[in-house]
Every structure is written in structure tokens, then in C-alpha cells.
């Protein structure tokens, strides 16, 4: 059933091929602009607290890969709050599937698949790929994907307990914004926050650092944090669903 859901979601995104490629191309232009920004920045500033142009491009490759998979393949992860707040889950609850995996796989965003493609190409061009670095890039990206999905599900599920989904939207914008910058430019309480309640540093900066300099302790912490956020997302959604009130809206979610 879940496999059929994934197939259906991809077929829907691929149905209009001209639009699909237009969206993928537009996202590539979007990502290229960020690369241009970092090249201009590091043309003037050689190194910022241990981050040079190579390491920041590696960070950006991991971020676009992670965000591309989460927002492209698990596209509903960022919409959960709105779906819950507006009572749009009825159609899912009537199906013989577990609601959370089905919801996450139900929708594919073509534009964000462009991010996945761009991330891979950027890593190939600027990440000095070797068998070991490719493995670390893939494994680190998977950890980032699990963590970001868990975080978005957690903040989105807060809508079951109150509000109209703003927490999910704010959490989404905040974590992606902060994940795109070298974590060491922040200090004190802000830096602590980026490793804990708003784990932006763990989405891309830590995996990128692991590709450059593997460290067992840091890898263990990343894996542990990913597992904790995955569990937190599942628990918040499951508990929240018990409080769900139908909006009598029959949508495809």
C-alpha cells in the first residue's frame, strides 16, 4: 500500500513533464544564486571561524540534498500542521494504513527534487568525492533527512494541541534558514539552541563536518539526535491524533 502511494505520488508529479522540468530548473537557479553568494562572500573573506568556501559549499550540498528529499519526497511533512488544524485528515483516517507514513509519502513536490539533483551535483563538483567521502555524505544526509522530518512532524503536530499551524510554519522557516549558515558564526545560547531544540546545526553543518573530518563521537551524537527527533515526531503525532477533530472536509490530504 505504501509502495503504491509512493508510485502514485511520483506519477502525479511526473504527469506534466514540461512543468516538472520547469520547476526543477527554477530550483536549480535558486540554488545557484546561493552558490554565487558564498563565492562572492569568500572572495572577500578567506575564512570565517574555520569555515572556508570548500566547507561551506559542502554544507550547502548536504543541505540541498536533505531539504530536497524531505520537502520533495516527504512533502506533507511541512504541511502537517495546516492539515491537522483545518481538519483535513478525514480521508486518510478512513484508509487501512498507518496515517503518518501514508501522509508523509502521499505528495511529491517536483521543485524540491531539483534540490536533490543539485545537491548531488554540487557535492560531485566541490566536495572532493572519494569512496569514503561519498559514503559519509550519503549516511550523513540520511541522518539529516530523518532528523529534519522528525522535527517538522513534531512542530507540525503541535497544531493538534492548539493554534492553527503557525508553529509548524515558523519551525520550518527557522530551521531551514539557520541550517544554511556555518554554525560557528553563532555563539552562546543561540549556538546551544541550534544543537538542541531547533537542531539546525545537525541538519547540514555536522554531517558536512563529518565528511571532512570523521569523528566517531560526533557521528554517534548525530545518529542519536536523529533517532530522538524521529521518535519525538512519531509520539507527538500519535498523541495529537487522539485529539483530532474532523473538519468534515474530504480532501486527498
Amino acid at each position: 500500500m505504501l509502495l503504491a502511494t509512493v508510485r502514485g505520488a511520483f506519477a502525479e508529479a511526473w504527469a506534466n513533464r514540461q512543468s516538472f522540468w520547469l520547476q526543477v530548473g527554477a530550483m536549480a537557479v535558486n540554488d545557484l544564486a546561493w552558490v554565487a553568494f558564498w563565492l562572492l562572500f569568500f572572495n572577500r573573506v578567506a575564512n570565517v571561524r574555520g569555515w572556508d568556501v570548500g566547507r561551506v559549499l559542502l554544507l550547502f550540498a548536504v543541505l540541498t540534498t536533505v531539504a530536497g528529499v524531505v520537502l520533495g519526497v516527504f512533502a506533507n511533512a511541512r504541511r502537517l500542521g495546516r492539515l491537522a488544524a483545518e481538519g483535513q485528515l478525514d480521508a486518510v483516517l478512513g484508509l487501512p494504513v498507518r496515517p503518518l507514513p501514508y501522509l508523509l509519502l502521499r505528495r511529491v513536490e517536483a521543485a524540491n527534487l531539483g534540490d536533490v539533483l543539485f545537491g548531488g551535483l554540487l557535492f560531485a563538483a566541490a566536495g572532493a568525492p572519494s569512496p569514503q567521502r561519498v559514503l559519509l555524505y550519503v549516511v550523513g544526509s540520511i541522518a539529516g533527512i530523518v532528523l529534519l522530518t522528525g522535527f517538522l512532524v513534531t512542530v507540525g503536530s503541535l497544531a493538534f494541541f492548539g493554534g492553527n499551524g503557525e508553529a509548524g510554519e515558523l519551525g520550518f522557516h527557522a530551521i531551514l534558514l539557520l541550517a544554511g549558515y556555518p554554525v560557528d558564526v553563532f555563539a552562546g545560547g543561540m549556538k546551544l539552541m541550534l544543537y538542541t531544540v531547533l537542531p539546525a546545526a545537525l541538519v547540514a553543518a555536522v554531517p558536512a563536518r563529518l565528511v571532512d573530518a570523521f569523528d566517531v563521537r560526533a557521528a554517534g551524537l548525530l545518529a542519536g539526535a536523529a533517532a530522538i527527533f524521529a521518535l519525538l515526531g512519531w509520539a507527538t503525532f500519535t498523541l495529537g491524533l487522539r485529539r483530532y477533530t474532523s473538519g468534515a472536509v474530504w480532501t486527498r490530504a
Partner: protein
Amino acid sequence: MTARWVAVAVSTAVQRVSGDRGGMLVTLGFYVAVVGTLAALWAAAAEASGGSVAGYDAAALAWYIVASEAATVALNVRMIEGIGDDIGSGAIAVELLRPAPVLGLRMATEVGRALPRLAVCVAGGAVLGVATVGPPPSAAGALLAVPALVLAIACNIAAQHAFAGLAFWIRDATSAWYLYQKLVFIAGGMLIPVEVFPAALQAVVKALPFIAMSYVPARLLSGAVEPQLLVLQAFWLVVLCALAVAVFSAGQRRLQVVGG
């Protein structure tokens, strides 16, 4: 008559946006997060470069970001996409029935929507700036930045309508939105002061209209007392309005041919 519908469109939009407290709070929260992040990045860059980058010290860079982000965050981020959808779906045909020009009414409404958000962002940015790096480097520059922010928004709205008008021909302005947004980010100096660019690129960027949309108020608030920049903004506002009028006039004629 013309002055009356412009005033009504602006004041109605101001009232509508001001009444949306939740939306204003989200705008402010997002603005503070962006300014805090970019100011931290540029402060680290200044520290790594011996105290200043391209003539801007850490305080000047922080105030630069306060203004450059206020001029862009205050705007409806999906404006081009929204206009494109209205054109592509034919919904804009209904607006042609009103006894007021479609473009003028839409632009006046967008200015009205942006003004309350601009006021909130500037207030939030001022508090953040004073608390972290002290007052703006120049009081005269700060005074000039106020009209520059309003002109920046007007230029941006006019340019977005000109870009979105492409939907009369291609029926979907989403890709135009992506391209436009990134031009403002980089060529407009929103993320990075134009002086940081290599000399050849600076010359190109300074000849483009995007600097009127973010760089000019940011440059003034960072301490530069250059009133001629306001004249440059006024020039680009006239050009961009004329361009938007030309695109919409041609597009509306085409829309009638298609049938709406």
C-alpha cells in the same frame, strides 16, 4: 478621481494588514531571525578581516542588514506568483470591469499592504540594532534611509508587476518569481553589500534597477550620507512604472484576444 481610488486602495490595504496581528507577528519573527542570522555572519566576517569588510565595520554591516531585510521582508513574498496565477487563470478579467486601471489598483494595494509590515520591521530592527551594536553610524544617513525604504518598496512592487506581466504570454510566473527573487538577493544587495563584489561586477550591478530595491536604504542606514541615491531611486521608480504599464497594456490586449 484617480487620487481618490489610490487613497482608498492604500488605506483599505493598510487597515486589513494592520488588523492581522498574527500575520504581523509572524513577519516580525521571521524578520528578526533573518537579521540576527545575517548580522552574526557579517560580524564574524568583519572579525576575520581585521575589523571591516569593504569599508563596512561590524556595526555598519548590522545596520545594513536591518534596512536591506526590512525593504524585502515587508513585501508579499509570493506577489509575482499570485499575479501570475490571476493572469494565467483569467481571474484578472473581472478586474478589467472596474472603473479604475488594474495595474494602478494592484500596485496601490500592495504598497498599502507593505507599509504596516515595513513599520513593524523597522521598529524591530531598530531595537535589535541598538541593543546589539549601538545606534546607527550616522543620524543623517538614518534620516535619509526612511524615504529610501518607502521608495525601495515602490520600486520593487513596480518591477514585480512588470515581471509578473510575463504571465500574459507564458501563463505561469513561478519561474519568473524564482529568477527575480534571486536578482534582488544578490544584484540588489539584500544579502551582500555591493562594495563586496569585484570591481567589474560592481559596475554592472550599479547600472541595474535592483540596487534601488534594497542596497540604497541599506547603504544609507549603514552610515553613508549620499542623498543622490534617493534621486537614483526616483529615476528607477519612473522607469519601472513605465515598464509595468507597457507590459500590462500589451498583456491586457492579448488577454482580450485569448478571451480571458
